[in-house]
C-alpha cells in the first residue's frame, strides 16, 4: 500500500463516518429537538398539536393544587398563562412564584401535560429562557434578576 492509497483510505473512512453521522443526525433530529415556548407564544404562534415542547415561566402564585401524586399548576409569563398538570415527585425547588421549565405536550383542551418538570441546582438561578421570556413580556424586575 502506498502513501497515496493510504491517504485515500483515510479520507474515505472519514467521509464514510461523516455520512453515517449525518444520516443518523437527520433521522434523530425530529424527536430529539424540543422547542421552547412561553405562555405568550402559545397564544400568538401556531403550535402544532401533539408535539413535544417546553414551556417556561413562573409558577403562578396560589395556582398549585396537589391531589395525591398529581399536581396542577399554572405557568405564567405575567401576560399570558397556561394550565399544566404533572404526575410525579416535583423537584425540590418547585415553588409558587419561582421559575419553572416543563416539558410535555399540549392536549386538545389546552392543558399542558407535563412529563417532566425541570429542577435547577441553584435557587439564585433562573432558567435563561424564563428570564428572557419575562423580559420579552415586559415583566422583568431587575431585583429578581439572578446575579
Amino acid at each position, binding site marked *: *500500500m*502506498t*502513501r497515496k492509497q*493510504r491517504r485515500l*483510505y*483515510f479520507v474515505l*473512512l*472519514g467521509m464514510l*463516518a*461523516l455520512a*453515517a*453521522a449525518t444520516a*443518523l*443526525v437527520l*433521522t*434523530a*433530529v425530529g*424527536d*430529539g*429537538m*424540543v*422547542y*421552547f*415556548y412561553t405562555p405568550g407564544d402559545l397564544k400568538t404562534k401556531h403550535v402544532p398539536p401533539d408535539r413535544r415542547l*417546553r414551556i417556561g415561566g413562573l409558577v403562578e402564585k396560589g395556582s398549585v393544587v*396537589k391531589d*395525591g*401524586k398529581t399536581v396542577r399548576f399554572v405557568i405564567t409569563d405575567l401576560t399570558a398563562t397556561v394550565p399544566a398538570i404533572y*404526575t*410525579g*415527585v*416535583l423537584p*425540590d*425547588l418547585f415553588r409558587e412564584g419561582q421559575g419553572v*421549565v416543563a*416539558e410535555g405536550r399540549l392536549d386538545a383542551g389546552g392543558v399542558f401535560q407535563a412529563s417532566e418538570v*425541570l*429542577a*435547577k*441546582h*441553584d*435557587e*439564585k*438561578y433562573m*432558567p*435563561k*429562557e424564563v428570564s428572557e421570556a419575562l423580559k420579552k413580556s415586559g415583566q422583568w424586575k431587575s431585583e429578581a434578576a*439572578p*446575579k
Partner: protein
Amino acid sequence: MIAETGHFALILALFVAIIQAVVPLVGAHRGDRAWMDVARPAALAQFLLIGLAFGALTWCYVTSDFSVLNVAQNSHTDKPMLYKVSGVWANHEGSMLLWVLILALYGVAVSAFGGNLPPALRARALSVQSMISIGFILFILLTSNPFARLDPAPLNGNGLNPLLQDPGLAFHPPFLYLGYVGFSMAFSFAIAALIEGRVDAAWARWVRPWTLAAWVFLTLGIALGSWWAYYTLGWGGYWYWDPVENASFMPWLVGTALLHSSIVVEKRDTLKAWTILLAIIAFSLSLLGTFLVRSGVLTSVHSFATDPARGVFVLGLLFVCTGGSLTLFAIRAPSLKAGGLFAPMSREGSLLLNNVLMSTAAGTVLLGTLYPLIADALNLGKISVGPPFFNGVFLPLMVPVVVTMTVGPLLSWKRSDLGSALARLKLAFVAALAVAIGSWLMAGGSATPLLAAGGFGLAAWLFVGSLLEWGERVRLFRAPFGESLRRAAHLPRATYGMTLAHAGLAVVIAGLTGSATWTTEKIQVMRPGDTMEVAGYELTLQGTEEVKGPNYTALRATFHTTKNGVFVADLKPEKRQYTMPPRPTTDAAIHTNMIGDLYAVIGEPDGKGGFVTRLYYNTLVPWIFLGAVIMVFGGLVSLTDRRHRVGAPLRKPQTLAAPAAAKA
C-alpha cells in the same frame, strides 16, 4: 492578611509564568542551554506560588474568614470540615484557582520526571504549558478574584449549595480537572513537536502515560459525577445528556482516541499528524467544557450564577488557543513524515477506524450540545436537544466501535488476516449470540427488546473477546498450564490494562442496557403502614421522623423491605431542609445487591397524612459504576507498566537540536 498573601502570590505566579513562557522558548530557538534550563525552576516556582495562593484561600475557608467575599458567599461556620475544604473549589473563583494549580502541578511533573527528555522539547513544552497558565491566571486576576475583601465582614456566610455538600461531589471537580487539565500535557507536547517539526516514538512514549493518567482521572471524574447525580437528585437516572455532562464527555471521547493513536505513533511511527490533531482537539474540548460551564451560555442544571465578562474571556482564550494551535498545525503538519505503512486490515487500521468513529461521535455530541446556541443566534427559535437525539445518533455510532475493539487486538500490526482473527473469536461470537437471544426472550420477545438483545450481545462479544485475546496471549489450554502461568506473569502490565479496560467497558454497556430495559418505577401516595410491591420486593412505609443534621433538619422515612417475607433492609430516604442557604434537598436511599438497586425517595406530604413516594428497581445500574471502576483500574495497571515509566529514551543523536540530555 492571609488573603492578600494569596493574591500577591498569584500575581507573582503570573510573572513567573511569563518568564517561563518566553525565556525557554527563545532559548530552544537559539539552542541556548542556559535559557532553556530556566523552564524547570520556573515551573517549580510557579507551582509553589499557586500552591501558596490555593493554600491561602483554603485557610480562609477553614477558619471561616468572612471578610473574604468568596468565603462569605459560599461558606458557613456550621458546615462540616470536609465541605469547608471542598467549598474552596465548589464555586467559580476557587475552582479556577484549582484549575491553574493542577496545570502547574503537571508542569512540575514535566520538570521532575522529564530529566531524560530532549532539552529543547522539554523547554518548548513547558513554555507552551506556561502560556496556558498565563491565560488562566489573568482570567482569575481580572475577572474572578477569589481574594476580594468584603467590608464590613458579615457575621456568618451564605453557606454552600446543599446539593454540593456531598462526598461524591466534593471529589468530582478535582478529578474532572485532573483529567481536563491532564490533556494540556499532550497539547503542550504536540505544540512543542509542531514547533520542532518532528514527532517520533520517543515523543509518543512520553505523551502516552500522561494522556493515560488524564484519561484515568477524567473517567473517574465523570463516573463520580454520574454516581452523585444518581443518588442525590432522586430521579433514578445517571446520565441526562445535559450540556455540561457532554462538556466532560467530549474530551473523554477524543482523549480515548488520542490514547489509542499515540500507541500507533509509538509502535509504528505513523498516524503522527492525526495524533497531534487529536491532542489539540482533546485539550480544546477541555477548554470548551470550561467555557460552557463557566459562561452559562447554555441552559443546564449546572449553570452557575454567571457573569458575561467571564464567558467572553474564556471564549477569547479558547479562540486564541485553538485557533493558534490549528494554524500552527496547518503550517507544520505536512512536514511530519509518516513512517510505517499499513494495510487497512491491520491493528493500525482497526485503531484508526475506531479513532475516526469516536471523533465523529464526539462531533455529533458537539453538534447536539451547541445546536441550541446556533439556533438561538440564527433566530430559529429556542430549542433544547434532548436525550432522544443523543441516543439516536451516538449509540449507533458506538456499535461498530465495540465490534471493532474486540477484533482489533487480535490483528497483527502492518498487515493482517481478518478471517483468522474472526476464527479465534468464534467463542465470543457464540457467547454474544446466546446472550442476545437469551436477553431478547427475557425482555419479552417482541420488537422493543431488540435493544436489549443488541446491547447485551455487544457486551458479551466485547467481554468474552477481551478474555479470549488474553487467553491467546498466554496460550491458555494450548500450552501446559505452567507455561500459561509463566506467560501470564510476564505479560506487560499495559496488556492487562487493555484487557481490564475493555472488559470494564463491556460491563458498563451491560449496565446501561439493563437499566434501559428493565427499570421499574412506581410513584404513589403512601401512608404509614402502606406496602408497595416493586420488582418482587415489598416495601412498607413504617413511618417518618424528624432528624437533625449538623446544618439541616430532615424528614426521614423508613421503608421496611422484605422479599418473599424475608427481611432485606430498611431503606431510609430523607428530605432535608438546610438552614443556610435555606433549601430543600432529596437524599435517596439505595439498597444494592449488585444486580439491581432498590431505590427509594420520599417526597412531599400530601397534607392528609400521606407522602408522595418514588420507588425504583434499577436493574444493572450498579454495573455501570462497577464497569467504570474496572476501566479506571485497568488504566492504573497500565500506568504501572515499566515501559511507561522509562519516559523518553534517547533519540537518534543526529536529530538533537542541543547536546544530549545531561541532568540539569
